[in-house]
């Protein structure tokens, strides 16, 4: 009875609250102990805000951070929050996990940068870059799952799009056609997934896994059979950023490197975030989509075409995943490498769940994943200072995904009909 009463109050079951509080408290203790090690009192970290280009216009002062106080304040915050969660319990725990992970990452960053300077603007801009494919993947997931089709094939769609875009861009000499090819491949694979799961009512997770295996196999196959032979099809090229078109934009302090140095696909992702958020919650289309995702039978009764809604949503989701895949090649790396998406499609799904199936929530969580990713990349430079084997740093994004998933699933609520095939009566 007590459990039911608590559930009605909106609190998580007690055992899980205890477990999570203890886990967060351990994180806080870990921060306090490990990140104060090898640190002299009064030692500072310099966080730079300039890039070689932005310095031409204005020199921003470095942020001077005293390492020990920051680590202690952040770990104290985490400890206090976990204690409060243990004793009283927070109602909404998604943000709690966000605060804890961010505190951990920030104190880790400050600790590794102790005694040296570290480009804060560099890591922030890298976070945004690395968050972009995750955000696009998560938006794709939101579109599909709001209409109750689980899309685990985002990874495969991204990989296929990354491959197609680079080949077409090189073959035609047009980046724009490359982009179109990437979007088309995303849409094509999504259409396949849609037919399988809507028309043939196949298990959606099995269908998604098959598409992932297919995309991995086909891109590896063609990579070896075509790209190794015709290397002129895999020449590095990327969309120019705004600051490459108008160099003055890149010199604006902070905003220049953070926004104008970025690929247009980053901008497109942010724009899509706003569009999907508004479309989903402020338009008739969004209402219908959500109705189909929550109660398809009721939606059907009032005259909404359940099948058409799902087809449209899944294929649109595929286009967005295709944009995410195109970002890997034409947006950042410039050329195709074998299995270059490296599980980012799965991380995007975790970001979608973590963000409670909303675009804004997905954005917030993809930024945290992007930050963890960027930290891992940047720390390779500071490897001697960290004393953590490089391979363990590489595990970081995957472990963050697992912790995030474990921490929030059960309290976030998927669309009620998610994953269920619909059958007209």
């Amino acid at each position, binding site marked *: 009875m007590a459990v039911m009463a608590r559930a009605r109050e909106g609190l998580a079951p007690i055992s*899980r609250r205890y477990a999570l509080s203890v886990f967060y408290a351990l994180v806080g203790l870990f921060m306090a102990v490990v990140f104060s090690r090898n640190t002299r009192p009064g030692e500072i970290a310099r966080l730079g805000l300039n890039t070689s280009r932005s310095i031409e216009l204005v020199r921003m002062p470095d942020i001077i951070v005293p390492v020990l106080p920051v680590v202690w304040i952040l770990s104290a915050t985490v400890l206090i929050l976990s204690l409060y969660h243990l004793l009283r319990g927070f109602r909404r725990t998604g943000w709690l996990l966000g605060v804890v992970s961010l505190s951990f990452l920030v104190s880790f960053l400050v600790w590794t940068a102790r005694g040296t300077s570290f480009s804060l603007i560099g890591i922030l801009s890298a976070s945004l870059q690395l968050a972009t494919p995750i955000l696009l993947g998560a938006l794709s997931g939101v579109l599909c799952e709001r209409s109750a089709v*689980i899309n*685990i094939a985002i990874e495969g769609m991204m990989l296929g799009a990354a491959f197609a875009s680079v080949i077409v861009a090189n073959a035609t000499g047009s980046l724009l056609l490359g982009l179109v090819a990437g979007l088309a491949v995303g849409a094509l694979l999504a259409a396949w997934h849609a037919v*399988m799961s809507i*028309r*043939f*009512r*196949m*298990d959606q*997770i*099995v*269908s998604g*896994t*098959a*598409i992932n*295996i*297919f995309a*991995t*196999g*086909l891109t*590896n*196959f*063609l990579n*070896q*059979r*075509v790209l190794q032979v015709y290397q002129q099809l895999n020449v590095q090229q990327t969309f120019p950023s705004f600051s490459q078109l108008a160099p003055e934009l890149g010199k604006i302090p902070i905003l220049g490197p953070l926004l104008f140095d970025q690929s247009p696909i980053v901008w497109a992702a942010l724009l899509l975030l706003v569009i999907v958020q508004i479309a989903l919650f402020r338009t008739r289309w969004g209402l219908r989509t959500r109705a189909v995702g929550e109660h398809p039978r009721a939606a059907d009764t009032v005259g909404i075409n359940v099948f058409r809604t799902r087809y449209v949503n899944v294929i649109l989701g595929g286009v967005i995943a295709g944009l995410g895949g195109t970002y890997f090649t034409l947006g950042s790396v410039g050329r195709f490498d074998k299995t270059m998406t*490296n*599980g980012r499609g*799965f991380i995007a*799904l*975790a970001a979608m*769940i973590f963000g409670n199936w909303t675009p804004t929530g997905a954005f917030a969580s993809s930024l945290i994943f992007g930050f963890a990713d960027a930290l891992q990349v940047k720390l390779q430079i500071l490897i001697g200072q960290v004393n953590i*084997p490089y*391979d*363990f740093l*590489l*595990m970081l994004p*995957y*472990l963050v*995904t*697992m912790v995030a*998933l*474990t*921490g929030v*699933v*059960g309290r976030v609520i*998927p669309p009620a009909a*998610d*994953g*269920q*095939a619909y*059958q007209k009566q």
Partner: protein
Amino acid sequence: MGISVQTEIQPGTGREGPSAQPPARNTGGQVLNALSIPVLALFSALVISAFFILASDPVVLAAYGKFLLSPGHALAVSWKEVADAYTALFLGAIGNPAAMAGAIRTYLATGQTNGLIQAFYPLSESLVSATPYIFAGLAVALGFKCGLFNIGAEGQIYIGALTAAFVGYTFTGLPWIIHAPLTLLAAALGGAVWAGIPGYLKARTGAHEVINTMMMNYVAFNLADFLLNGPMKRGGSTGFIPISRDIQASAYLPKFFPDPIRLHAGFLVALAVAVGVYLFLWRTTLGFELRTVGANLRAAKYAGISVTRNFILAMALSGALAAMAGAGEVMGVNHNIAQGFSPGYGYDSIALALMGGSNPLGVVLAALLFGALRNGATDMQALAGIPIDIVSIVQAFVIMFVAAPAIIRWIYRLKAGGGFQAIFTRGWGG
């Protein structure tokens, strides 16, 4: 044509998956019907893959550019390309039947074994490849039986191989009868713990096992990378690929035949384990509970079966089986673990388990087939220049066709029903 599909799936089986009724004794006709889906699925997948082989060959494409001028030439070029590829696949997988017959005649006449070894080498290699497939396929199948989708078999194979290598080279002076079983059990335990983690997370928090097992794959690969470059690194190794120390001879799985035949006792162990899995699932109370949870979660809860315990048990057993695939490779074939030693046995085993209908006999048959495919594809890559990844494309279509039997029934005009059941997993919630 839409109607034929609609009527084939009985309403009500939607999310519950295979029905919880005790399966009736299979009649001969039912067995034939159950076999026809996977066989036709494989055939269709090979046909589709042929198109990918053709579409990626510039010579063939050039011939089709002149299709209107000489259609016969284009078709002949296509046929030759596909025939060459699949002939190389067959010869690499099974061997040359004529040479085999000749070698047997020579052996019976003269007692010469050289020709015999040469002729049967491809077949024996297929059995060597089939061994890890049997273990890993059983792992995925056992997960399916509890309604869990373990796509982390690849990582679990690495954990098993790492554990086996560690136990294999650390303990010295043990007799074979103790050391070899100890190594295999340690690997199984390592895999059980590794896969038990996502099982526990699934049971207690509902975090989906597909994402967690996938994430743990990446963690396992990086862990292997760390260990093989650090603590487990072979002393004085300067090779390009990180590799561990060799295990003690007392931890080897014995071989049956002289070199170069590599077939080892792991194959028999795998068959025995398949029987064990069958007995566990269908002849024990624990196995019944596990299948009940997989067949109908709500009914299982109502009957007082602990879903938590069964999720953890199923994932742990699944991980133990997958780990034995890795241990078998270390103890029977390589005698060490090198980075990238598994060509994707874990991923392949998903298609394999689906194709085998998630039952041990089906898994063993499918594993023999996949072992032959994988082994033959190596020859196809060497002789016909077709990249080995074509196997993944074949597998993807096999999964599609097997998981949606309606497609195969529609293409080949088969009657509905029969013993073949589609697989169903769970959404994010349960």
